[in-house]
């Protein structure tokens, strides 16, 4: 007798649990959907400001940057993503100073650990929250961060924020 009771109880409680599940899914069926329609929603898409998409070197309107080519970022990079090419040039006072010629950055091997930005004494580089970096060849991921003909900012003003 007990086994029959168990049998029936098992049957009906099982059936009950199944209908509960079906009720819930049907409720969700009519709920608002959460799909985000990318790329149509590009304009409204919100990317967190701190998201680390790519490394850039901010330049001001006079095509000047803050990098003094000290090489601290290069040293700190765990993946050797950054390569700095510099040369010695005399400044106004006639002293020989290190000047940045090329700031090479390989987006493809970047760990996005942010050590370069954190250790930069001049706040010369920062991360942008861009994310559409898909390219067809790896070569396109090798970037030169300092612009053509750019030079060091003469009087370092308030540096671009380090978000």
């Amino acid at each position: 007798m007990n086994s029959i009771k168990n049998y029936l109880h098992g049957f009906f409680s099982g059936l009950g649990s199944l209908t509960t599940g079906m009720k819930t899914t049907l409720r969700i069926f009519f709920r608002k959907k959460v799909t985000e329609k990318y790329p149509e929603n590009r304009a409204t898409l919100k990317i967190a400001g701190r998201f680390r998409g790519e490394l850039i070197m901010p330049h001001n309107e006079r095509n000047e940057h803050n990098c003094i080519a000290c090489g601290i970022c290069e040293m700190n990079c765990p993946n050797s993503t950054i390569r700095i090419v510099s040369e010695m040039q005399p400044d106004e006072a006639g002293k020989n100073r290190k000047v940045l010629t090329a700031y090479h950055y390989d987006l493809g091997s970047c760990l996005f650990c942010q050590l370069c930005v954190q250790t930069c004494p001049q706040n010369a580089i920062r991360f942008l929250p861009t994310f559409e970096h898909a390219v067809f060849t790896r070569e396109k991921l090798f970037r030169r961060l300092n612009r053509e003909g750019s030079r060091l900012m003469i009087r370092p003003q308030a540096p671009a924020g380090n978000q």
Partner: protein
Amino acid sequence: MFDFSVVTQWVDQFLRSFMPAEMAVLAELILIGLCLLSGYALIALALIYAERKICAFFQCRIGPDRVGPFGLLQSFADMIKMLIKELIDINHVDRFLFNLAPFVVIIASVLAFGCIPFAKGLQVLDFNVGIFFLIAVSSIGIVGILLAGWASNNKYSLIGAMRSGAQMISYELSIGLSILTMVVFAGTMQLSAIVESQAGGWFIFRGHLPAVIAFVIYLVAGTAETNRGPFDLPEADSELTAGYHTEYSGMHFGFFYLAEYLNMFIVASVATTLFLGGWMPLHMPGWEGFNRVMDHIPSIVWFFGKTAVVIFIIMWFKWTFPRLRIDQLLRLEWRYLLPLNLVNLLLMVVVVVFKLHF
């Protein structure tokens, strides 16, 4: 209500008017075959689209919406992709059986598809043992699945095929018995006659309790029969990658895929025919105006509408429940469904004998 036999007779007379009778029959056979196959393909495409949309809605998504308005052309794009894909030639398979299997599966479902009364006067095969024939041909599909699993020479496929065998043979019983229950009630195995006899009220209403139980059992067993979730053990993707059709590619895989959806349609349309009155409109005794309005809706709309509802329920099952394990699956059949079914059959006999139905 529009009778489609007018159209078919007109075609018949038209053909006979300029060719000998044998030729006319031959032409009709070809014509019917073409209609059936294109109908088959169209329904499968529609079902694939419906499944993707419905499952997306259950999952808080919106589903395909890129190809065509609301993604309506998505299935066609998929079909074209499937058609132009390579049939990969695999080493170490039994080539003949391997290539035969998808055809066996698809032939079984096309044969069953031919038995269904789609609308008034629109039915290809109408025997006096129609429902019996339908069960018989739809069971051929399992041979195809077993062949596919065996011939693939793949361990996953073999396990999938074995599971499929155990599952289909078990659930065939339930399907058969629940259909038998309704045959007892209808008193005939001819599909057209079954539909006709529901003019006064659908069987699920007239047969009340035993018919409802048979309907539920039929739905469960039918879902299992089509290898759909939660009974999709033969192709359990998280266990056996893709089960018996792991090794298939291109249109051979496409055949399995089409057959799966069409089998779902067949299960749903048999449920419609047996329980929900087939193409018969909904009639309320005493509501003359209402009945008149219902009669104006074409029979084909009634049929496909009801089938769509059943299909939605089957999809609802799939997108709610986790997959059963093989022992649970067999326990469900042998411990719960089968005894219930036998009792229900007895109940139905009592109902019929003592005229307890409406």
